[in-house]
């Protein structure tokens, strides 16, 4: 059976992820797989001993010491994870979803998703996670990596769920947004909802022609489409349109540029996910 993956870490975004997942599951009839990963963060060191001296059987001793340390931590994390998943199950049951499977895995989120994704249709994750209250207005550390690595659409949930009645497609003419349009066209997730098609940036005849072409394509699928072309930077144009048009969901292509460019210039995708207050459906 087709299913979607709801990623949870029990943070304040978790209830919203559950609600978004329940919404998507109800609309598409997909089953829900709730995923909680126990990331031991082996790349981080918990203790450090700066004595720089190594004694008898240094590597074996050190291995045992590290295992002992991580053992206790991991056990607590596992129990906490079980509680989180039980809570998720309650959420979904009360939302009337019966096809739920909970999954607890060891490892980093991105790698775990890479293993599970091929069999699923949609990944749902919160904009922020465990450290949500630490630096407000930033994007969760995992979200960006998940979006970048993902081969399936990713729905990034906002802090709270609001029924989705109208959505906006940020149309930049790129290949990922074309995939987004195809998904909207063929998938029952957004079927029947009014759509606002927005083109921002440099507007010329070609751009408007493509915009209308896409709108017609969507109208064929029974969508009620309004179009808008604004010669403003995408970030400001999209933010403004979301407010003006009372948009509940932003659909866009993700990360058109290389990580190096992003490292230097920043990326539209990251900015949009961070600043807009609505959930974002991303396509690679």
């Amino acid at each position, binding site marked *: 059976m087709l299913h979607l993956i709801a990623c949870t870490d029990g943070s304040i975004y978790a209830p919203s992820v559950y609600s978004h997942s329940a919404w998507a599951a109800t609309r598409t009839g997909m089953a829900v797989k709730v995923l909680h990963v126990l990331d031991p*963060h082996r790349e981080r060191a918990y203790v450090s001993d700066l004595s*720089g001296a190594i004694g008898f059987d*240094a590597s074996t001793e050190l291995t045992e010491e590290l295992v002992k340390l991580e053992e206790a931590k991991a056990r607590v994390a596992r129990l906490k994870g079980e509680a989180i998943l039980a809570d998720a199950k309650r959420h979904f049951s009360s939302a009337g979803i019966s096809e739920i499977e909970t999954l607890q895995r060891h490892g980093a989120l991105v790698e775990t998703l890479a293993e599970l994704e091929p069999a699923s249709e949609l990944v749902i994750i919160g904009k922020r996670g465990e450290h949500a209250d630490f630096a407000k207005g930033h994007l969760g550390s995992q979200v960006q990596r998940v979006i*970048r690595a993902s081969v399936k659409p990713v729905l990034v949930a906002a802090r709270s769920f609001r029924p989705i009645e109208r959505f906006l497609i940020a149309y930049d003419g790129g290949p990922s947004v074309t995939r987004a349009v195809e998904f909207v066209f063929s998938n029952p997730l957004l079927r029947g909802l009014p759509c606002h098609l927005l083109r921002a940036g440099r507007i010329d005849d070609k751009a408007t022609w493509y915009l209308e072409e896409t709108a017609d394509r969507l109208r064929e699928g029974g969508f009620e489409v309004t179009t808008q072309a604004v010669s403003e930077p995408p970030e400001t144009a999209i933010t403004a349109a979301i407010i003006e048009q009372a948009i509940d969901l932003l659909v866009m292509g993700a990360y058109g540029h290389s990580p190096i460019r992003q490292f230097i210039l920043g990326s539209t995708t990251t900015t949009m996910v961070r600043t807009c207050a609505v959930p974002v459906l991303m396509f690679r």
Partner: protein
Amino acid sequence: MFSRNFTQDWFSNLRGDVLAGLVVALALIPEAIAFSIIAGVDPKVGLYASFCIAVVTAFFGGRPGMISAATGAMALLMVTLVKEHGLQYLLVATLLTGVFQMIAGLARIGDVMRFVSKSVMTGFVNALAILIFLAQVPELKVGGFAVYAMVAGSLAIIYLLPRLTRVVPSPLVAIIVMTVIAIIFKLDVRRVGDLGSLPDSLPVFLWPQVPLTLETLKIVLPYSIGLAAVGLLESWMTAQIVDEMTDTPSDKNRESLGQGIANFVAGLFGGMAGCAMIGQSVINVKSGGRGRLSTLLAGVFLLIMIVALGPWVKQIPMPALVAVMIMVSIGTFSWASFKNLSKHPKTSSIVMLATTLVVVLTHNLAIGVGVGVLLSSIFFARKVAQILRVTSELKMQPVPGGNKSKSKQKQEISANSRSQSCRIYTVTGQLFFASSDAFVREFDFKEVLSKVSIDVTHAHFWDLTAVACLDKVVLKFRREGTEVELIGLNEASATLVDRLGVHDKPDALERLLAH
């Protein structure tokens, strides 16, 4: 470089990596100097090498958090080259070593590490520790009360200080204390400055000054091959140890490539060849180092300290360095392997001891590992060869009008049934070069029979030796006038093809094990 794990590899453990990098850099100074002395070159050659190798492997290595620099195992292989031809030829050998290692990385030779058994690794590690210790002996032989007292004092500080505080590296404290004592009391001990020149600037790019002829290649080639092999082996083993300690994976082939680039760069900047260091990598992990940043900073801090503190480094008394190296040797040695000698199977212990012994005698880790791998393969073959059983059963051919009878000893001797006697040999198990003699011995060619059936449905023929042996058995029977029938040859020889075809038939392995 900008892979998915880029941030994770570099910046996920900032505090730990920075502190560990500092601790490791401090520990690298005495080691780099000591290993230069082993190789017979100026300390600056080892120090430049350590800087270059650490920095380059930080970027290109396959095991974040592993420390690579100038090492004792490599230094030991260079001794004759340096003695007979000088430093410039060592630099060329280093460049060539890098090229070989890069090729090994691109050819993905790292996968052969699986043939190196645990016992060989233990033997290797022990041999390495012994070699590091032996290299300190000449310095101890200089003798005198002052030397022994300083070594003992340094060791006391190194091992006892961590019981009081773990925020300062105790080897560093030992070195500082001993340096101060040596200066104040004007002790007559050898200083680092007596052993050759130290770096006074950043390393500069220079092409080795040797004639680029075939003659040069002939001189450096054997050394480069040895260096490349030892460097890769020690790096892979260290990577494996770090993998185990931190429970994170590494990429052996990327590591080979990284080591190759590192040695190439080291050769261009006047450094000697190096590889990963077990002792330093343990220190790094222990100090909280996990990411690539720790390796990079170890190299950078090393160079800063050497260039800035050069005049002070010159004053470090050798006995203090000897003490640090003794600590590294003790920490590298696998003391548990002594305890395990009585517990582990004898063959494992023989492999371990043979590896250690050969390395200590030849001063070449690659030869030792070769011997160890060979021995463990032989022992393994011998063990598997025991999985072979040949059973037989005598059957009477139905004689027209006669009564049918089963194989019973009485009938075996009875004269009238002999002409119709048929023996069925059932072969079960693994047939290959090591078990083929035993296989042939199981047949009784002296028995007079009219027909022999050999059922090999439940046997596996692994090589041509096995096939040849079966041929031999068949011919021998035929020579006696016995009719021979072979049953199940197709199933038995499925294993002969190099790949078992497991990949295209999902149940191939089950079928193989079942019959």
